């Protein structure tokens, strides 16, 4: 059952090959047996899952069930789930039980999907390796001495290890696409404003976006159909019609113009990764697409701009964690200042503290214009690069990451070395464009991802291109040993 895609499980449930209860029990048993090897989940919601599965079975029997009714799913522990601990991978929220559901969670509940648990992640979504979680690192199912990527490492590992057929995740600088690439799964970051951020614990408000992870593009389309919604409670949500993302997956790619940015194929790119990506691009040519060399000249400014904007916005967003209304509080605070300072020093891990301090610096008096103001202007340059490119091409493709999964501690004490892992994904967030990663090869036994970037609200075309690639290749079907 765990080797089926979501699309196949939907058919299986309706043809009564299995019930949602059987499916849920199957995945819960797999989690019990296997997850100690990967540490992909922070909370497992067994009782709740079985209850939801029973309700789903009744709905399926009545014959009017929504598409995802009875399908098991894992949610990144950044989405508030009413009555279920939501930790954001942090000691600060280890005891936090939200009194409400995030809109994304409500959407899945209304669809009848069955929540298996909450997945592990880098603390407050800050990281590219899932090494900063309060709950310990997640291990890559392809090579457990390697990172799964981050910050959605738990969701990616759980899907790769077939502990769940699909998962939700979030992406601020690459946190869906990069772990999807390193774990050999498919992940999609929608256009900014496509998916509601209500109840999605905020890291960088102008960059964050929730999206699906699964083994196939078709499955991601089905999940995105559920996740995307206009929500008046999120004032950055865009009110725009939502297509059926699964409707045009089979469209021909004849004449599709694919932009290949030359700046994404320069030094620092692993040779094996480059070869896998170039072979994949040849597959697209066989399907009738045309490759066009393009330039995104301000690519080199994307990492510096991001590491001003994201920490600055994070420093503002994380100021709410102060030991007063919820979350961790230090023992015996002497006065209010002591309450704030020790709660935050004890509740936040090192990387989070570092980013808050950088953000505070960039926003402080005398530095705001030189850092935050400048970075927001550079963001215009990056957006303009993409606008110009999309006048000549329909999609842009590149490697997702500069190399396959690296060993734990490989980036050592150098934060900048870790930040450069995001070099191909960050510009997409700065411009607000949609992007996805699909498995496209293996290097030394570890997966490689192909990144597909679309124009604003063009997720359907990205998914169509990804789906057709997955008809012509089988990288997405490979399974790690032992799962």
């Amino acid at each position, binding site marked *: 059952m765990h080797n089926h895609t979501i699309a196949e499980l939907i058919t299986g449930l309706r043809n009564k090959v299995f019930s949602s209860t059987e499916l849920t029990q199957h995945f819960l048993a797999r989690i019990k047996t296997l997850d100690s090897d990967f540490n992909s989940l922070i909370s497992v919601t067994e009782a709740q899952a079985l209850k939801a599965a029973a309700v789903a079975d009744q709905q399926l029997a009545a014959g009017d069930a929504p598409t995802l009714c009875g399908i098991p799913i894992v949610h990144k522990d950044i989405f508030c789930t009413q009555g279920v601990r939501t930790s954001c991978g942090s000691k600060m929220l280890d005891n936090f039980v939200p009194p409400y559901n995030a809109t994304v969670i409500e959407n899945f509940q209304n669809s009848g999907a069955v929540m298996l648990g909450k997945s592990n992640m880098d603390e407050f979504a800050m990281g590219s390796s899932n090494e900063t979680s309060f709950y310990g690192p997640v291990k890559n199912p392809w090579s457990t001495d390697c990172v799964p990527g981050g910050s959605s490492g738990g969701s990616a590992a759980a899907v790769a290890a077939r502990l769940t057929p699909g998962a939700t995740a979030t992406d601020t600088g690459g946190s869906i696409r990069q772990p999807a690439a390193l774990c050999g799964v498919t992940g999609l970051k929608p256009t900014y404003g496509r998916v509601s951020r209500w109840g999605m614990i905020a890291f960088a408000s102008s960059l964050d976006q929730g999206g699906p992870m699964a083994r196939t593009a078709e499955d991601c389309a089905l999940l995105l159909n559920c996740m995307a919604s206009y929500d008046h409670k999120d004032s950055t949500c865009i009110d725009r019609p939502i297509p059926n993302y699964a409707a045009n997956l089979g469209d021909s790619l004849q004449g599709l113009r694919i932009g290949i940015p030359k700046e994404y194929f320069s030094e620092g790119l692993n040779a094996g990764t480059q070869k896998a990506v170039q072979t994949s691009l040849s597959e697209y040519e066989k399907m009738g697409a045309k490759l066009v060399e393009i330039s995104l000249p301000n690519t080199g400014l994307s990492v510096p701009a991001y590491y001003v904007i994201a920490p600055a916005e994070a420093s503002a967003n994380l100021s709410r964690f102060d030991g007063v209304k919820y979350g961790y509080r230090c023992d015996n605070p002497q006065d209010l200042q002591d309450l704030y300072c020790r709660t935050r020093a004890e509740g936040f891990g090192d990387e989070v503290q*570092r980013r808050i301090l950088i953000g505070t610096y960039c926003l402080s008096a005398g530095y705001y214009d030189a850092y935050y103001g400048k970075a927001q202007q550079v963001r215009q340059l990056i957006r303009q690069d993409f606008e110009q490119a999309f006048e000549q091409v329909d999609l842009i493709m590149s490697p997702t990451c500069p190399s396959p999964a690296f060993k734990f501690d490989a980036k050592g004490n150098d934060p900048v070395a870790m930040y450069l892992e995001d070099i191909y994904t960050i510009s997409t967030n700065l411009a607000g464009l949609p992007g996805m990663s699909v498995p496209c090869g293996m290097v030394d036994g570890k997966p490689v991802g192909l990144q597909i970037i679309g124009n604003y609200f063009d997720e359907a075309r990205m998914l169509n291109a990804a789906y057709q690639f997955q008809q012509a290749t089988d990288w997405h079907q490979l399974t790690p040993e032992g799962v």
Partner: protein
Amino acid sequence: MSIENNTIENLANLARIAIDKDQVAEISQRLGSVLQLVDQLQAADTSGLTDLDHPMQGTQRLREDTVTETDQREAFQAVAPDTEDGLYLVPKVID
């Protein structure tokens, strides 16, 4: 580049995060290396450009000024560290 130690202490105060004196040097060095990365921005020509703070260049939506939410204080305070009579308790602020 490095940041002066008293700048780190000032930042820690602004961010309300307690930092031990023996951590200051290490933090200063790490922050310095990030700021070195970030200084690359200064070379960019951004004359005439406005800030891009919303990727869609969206504007803030407004709504009617009417009450729509219900009182959920009990539910919200159920997860609070310390409350009394519907108020959040903190150490004494005023002497």
